[in-house]
């Protein structure tokens, strides 16, 4: 502090004479306080970074510990165990794993043509103007509709609709609930998401590339087919992966529409359960080994979605760079 007093002499060189409250010495005093806050703030920032790592590892560890009983009892064969039998306490994940994969991929299959069409329409044919803005915003709004509301809508509209299809196809047990219904609602839910991702990817194509093709006499469709699609291939793929990740973990709408049975689905019109819907339905009143098995389902879901999301994010990062 001795040095700072010496500093005060310099103040008289200024013409904007600092008032008493701003004398250098008082500013120094303030600043010592500030320096303490500054280092506390830096510590806080770093601890936030640590917190995220701890949180995610904590989630993972909790799932592992929670499912340890099930892992010990059933081992790795839990994954392809064909029965989920609450009476005899024998649990295998295959019915739900199959249900999850079936609904998700069916939904993806249904949604891809539509989401790519919307993406091309908004990204290439009508990238600007009020109409495209309106459409874009509407799609974003639709993506925001809560899952449980889609479930309720599906129950009232989709289920009778699928039932009529089933009657026309002459399928036994026409109930309207089942894998197909769940896939339809999943498709409806992921189209807005996939389309928004696809649109942003398509808009990233440098116009110089497209202009080069146009200057060689290419038609619009040829530009899309030979320039836009090849350029955005990896980005579109990432979009599909991320949509798949969403579909796999989607819970409520699926739970409300899939029919909730523990059998391995025999056809796409059969009833079933996904891993997420099984957890939602049974976890509340499950105990011991049953609860542990359900947590292991959660662990499987966690790992699968993590791999798919990481892959998607990796691809999209490489694409945008």
């Amino acid at each position, binding site marked *: 502090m001795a040095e700072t007093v010496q*500093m005060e002499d310099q*103040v008289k060189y*200024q013409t*904007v004479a600092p008032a008493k409250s701003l004398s*250098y010495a008082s*500013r120094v005093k*303030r*600043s010592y306080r*500030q320096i303490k806050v500054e280092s506390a703030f830096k510590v806080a920032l770093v601890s936030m970074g640590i917190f995220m790592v701890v949180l995610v590892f904590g989630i993972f560890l909790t799932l592992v510990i929670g499912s340890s009983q099930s892992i010990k009892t059933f081992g790795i064969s839990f994954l392809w165990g064909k029965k989920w039998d609450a009476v005899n306490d024998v649990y295998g994940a295959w019915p739900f794993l199959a249900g999850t994969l079936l609904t998700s991929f069916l939904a993806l299959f249904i949604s891809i043509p539509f989401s790519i069409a919307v993406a091309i329409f908004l990204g290439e044919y009508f990238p600007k103007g009020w109409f495209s803005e309106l459409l874009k915003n509407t799609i974003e709004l639709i993506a925001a509709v809560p899952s449980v509301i889609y479930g309720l809508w599906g129950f009232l509209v989709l289920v009778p609709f699928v039932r009529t299809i089933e009657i026309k196809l002459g399928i036994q047990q026409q109930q309207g609930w089942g894998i197909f219904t769940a896939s339809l609602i999943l498709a409806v839910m992921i189209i807005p998401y996939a389309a928004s991702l696809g649109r942003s990817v398509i808009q990233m194509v440098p116009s110089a590339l497209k202009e080069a093709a146009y200057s060689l006499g290419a038609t619009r469709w040829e530009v899309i087919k030979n320039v836009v699609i090849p350029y955005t291939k990896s980005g579109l793929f990432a979009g599909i992966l991320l949509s798949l990740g969403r579909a796999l973990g989607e819970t409520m709408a699926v739970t409300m529409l899939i029919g909730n049975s523990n059998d391995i689905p025999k056809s796409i019109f059969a009833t079933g359960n996904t891993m997420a819907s099984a957890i939602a339905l049974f976890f509340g009143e499950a105990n011991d080994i049953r609860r542990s098995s359900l947590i292991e389902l959660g662990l499987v879901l966690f790992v699968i979605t993590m791999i798919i999301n990481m892959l998607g994010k990796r691809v999209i990062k490489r694409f945008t760079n």
Partner: protein
Amino acid sequence: MESTIVKSVDYNAYFGDNRVVKNVNIEIPRNTVIAVMGPSGCGKTTFLRGINRMHELIPNATAKGKILLNNEDVMEMHPIFVRLKIGMVFQRPNPFPNLSIYDNVIAGYKLNGIKLPKAEKDKIVEESLTKVALWKEVKDSLTKKGSFLSGGQQQRLCIARAVAMAPEVLLFDEPTSALDPISTSTVEELFHELKKNYTLIIVTHNMQQAARVSDRTAFFYMGELVEYDETKRMFTNPRDKRTQNYITGRFS
């Protein structure tokens, strides 16, 4: 006799292992304008940013040696104290876009949480803006955002912002390189005025500017301080071959 205000002793600056400023020793007298020039990549900006410890903000950047401000080593002080006494103006005007012109001038107080009576704030704003010859132009639009001004006005606003903190030294990092010729000459005229109260250190790649505004010129080359002398002497009779080559335009 004029006294020394800033003095560097064996100052070295690094980016990682790369030494970009090498053993610089310089004495800067109070109330003068010092031009620091040299070809791009010669370390002149790095040296300037070293004076108020801005250099260390860049990741991996380190510095050794002493920089004395009134015989006190700034390398030993906390950067906050250093920067309160040594103001800085940057290459591109950077007023705070979320603040009004008025608040931009007293940003150093406002954003540092120093409460001032309204009258005092008004006084600081008016005096600072007058010093940079901006008061007449903006006195009726003080509540508008800083980004509303033209480039040259923005740069003068940034100078006013630094002046308002009542520093002893003002650092300028190529202050006119982003400005048009008319704004440039307005800013250059300011230097003459500001010199009465402050010590100005100006990095420039523009030799004419160095010749026009400065009392003394320092020539940097490859990280070294090659020559430091009175501006007139250096431009008419450079001692070092490298300075001569630079001034005569053999390399840039």
